[in-house]
């Protein structure tokens, strides 16, 4: 029983890393919106780059998620 508890606590702790990705995506989207507000013509390019950047930032959160899922379902 203790092992299961430790696994679940570990999975919860692993997800703390999502904070960084959340902050990163917030900064990214904020910057993109400011850019679009200043230069609406560049909206297309900014959007594409923003999605790329979000994908990179999100990947970090996904690593945490994979670690958490592995802890819950695989170990």
């Amino acid at each position, binding site marked *: 029983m203790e092992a299961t508890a430790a696994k679940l606590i570990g999975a919860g702790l692993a997800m703390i890393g999502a904070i960084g990705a959340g902050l990163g995506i917030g900064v990214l989207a904020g910057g993109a919106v400011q850019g679009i507000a200043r230069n609406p013509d560049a909206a297309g390019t900014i959007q594409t780059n923003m*999605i790329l950047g979000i*994908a990179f930032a*999100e*990947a970090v959160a996904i*690593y945490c998620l*994979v670690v958490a*899922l592995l802890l819950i379902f695989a170990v």
Partner: protein
Amino acid sequence: MTAHKNHEQTQKSGGFRPGCLGVLVMIALTIFLPRVVPVLQPHVALPADRILDDPLFTIPGLPGDQGAVYLTNTLVTWAIAVFIVLLMGFLVGRRVKQAMARDEYVLTGFTDVFVSFVEVLYNLTESTAGKWTRVIFPYFVTITTLVLVINWMELLPGIDTIGVLTPSHKPGYGYVVKDLGPVAILWEEAEGKGEKGEALVPGGRYGLAAVEEGEPTYEFRPFFRVASTDLNFTLALALVSVIMTQIVGLRALGAHYMEKFFNFRALLRGPMGLLDFAVGLLELISEFSKILSFSFRLFGNIFAGSVLLFVMGALMPPILFGFYGLELFVGLIQAFVFGMLTMVFMAQATQHH
């Protein structure tokens, strides 16, 4: 022609639309069906389940069981998705050729949607890759379409829910089933007796049930499971993407491409060149980390999505529709991001520093 126009007008002026009715019926079913049939959370497992117990074939020369290739449920779904993509490409290509032969330049229906999709991707590639568009574009569109079809298969009924029941290895664990003649449905999840002999949560409808002595329990193995919830598929796709990036780079720059990683010329420039050499080695490491991030990003997103749908389906079936919308969006974004990153990395590999 006139009949076609009339049909279009009746559709535009509102009135009866079969599609809307279908969606409404499905929403109603998600609300009322769980009152009749218990919705269980499927047992989530990371590795794919084997449909056949015997291996399909064995790769010779590998020690032990490592060479055995099994027919897994993700492999089945992958094959179906590849078939769908090939069929789509073939049919749309034929329709476009027919239309061109008849000098018609207005496409209709699915052909129009598919051609517009490809055109958007082509323009994006052209604005990034320039003269290497024709080399890079096929990888971009193939990866995006295949991953999109595979990701959206997650939302089809029958995926993860139709399968084979086998008697449980551990007596008292697994699912209790209800026999309905030719088919059986999972009725209760059983956790048997607790470790110290006491029963766990008894008789909970969505929870775990204490199984009576001698009641047969079964394990459930679905026939279909989305291929991107199998790390093997995403890893294979990532390897294809990263290896082809190197090949496109070598094709574009020849031996100069390797200078990006092993910058021996910078070493001749003295101590500051040493730094440039180290940066080159870091580039090499980042190529390997691309494999990791490509495969984990797709796998993590789609696996987490399917777990989310399982949990929400068991907890709150009526609001499942919102999560379907979310997964529709996530599947599209992840397919686009996988293809787009491949395209951008390939375009970068063709450029001089």
